[in-house]
């Protein structure tokens, strides 16, 4: 499965950065395979790269490919992919 998933608006399996529009244009980074925080862009850091997985319909880390973005309360973090929707 390749190309744009129109329903989700993301290309399948194509890594991307999540770039803040705040002044420094920092990016989201998955730190230690769990928490997601704001960091200065390092292009080669795969912890800052995410991709849409067409099979599970989740956003995965390009560094830890068995983990997807999820929520704990209002906090964004990564956990083992379970494709659960709240």
């Amino acid at each position, binding site marked *: 499965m390749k190309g744009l998933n129109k329903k989700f608006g993301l290309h399948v399996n194509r890594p*991307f*950065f999540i*770039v803040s*529009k705040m002044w420094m244009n920092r990016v989201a980074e998955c730190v230690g395979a769990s928490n997601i*925080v704001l960091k200065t862009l390092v292009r080669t850091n795969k912890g800052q790269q995410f991709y849409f997985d067409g099979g599970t319909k989740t956003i995965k880390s390009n560094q830890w490919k068995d983990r997807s973005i999820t929520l704990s309360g209002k906090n964004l973090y990564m956990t083992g992919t379970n494709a659960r929707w709240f």
Partner: protein
Amino acid sequence: MKGQVVEVVGAVDNENRNIGVNDAKGGMHQEWDIIYVDEMPAALKIGEENKDWGFKINSPFYVVSKKSRGYFLDLLGNNMVMKTRNGMKSQQFYFDQKTRTIKSVRTPSYSWNIQSNGKGSNMSVYSTNSNWW
């Protein structure tokens, strides 16, 4: 969490700030670009213009008052004052791409700063921290 958006918690643009979700409030802290890695623009080089900020990177400039005497912005200690042009490095500044601050040519480790953590009205230079208020 239907109807909620991803945000920088506390709307503070600092390193290691947590990212979470919240009701949409319309601030830049809730706005993001998804940029594919293979489409990420190359890093700007020295002398190139950062169009978002309107400055050429690392290119020294003066700040000249439009009042009739045309005083130059200068540093007295770390405080900003107006002075006659004197050729000193304390009257030269440049935009630093990495920290997105305006630095002093005289003291490159210092950047423009609004005193009292952004709550004051006086301008100075201070050790670069890239804090935005």
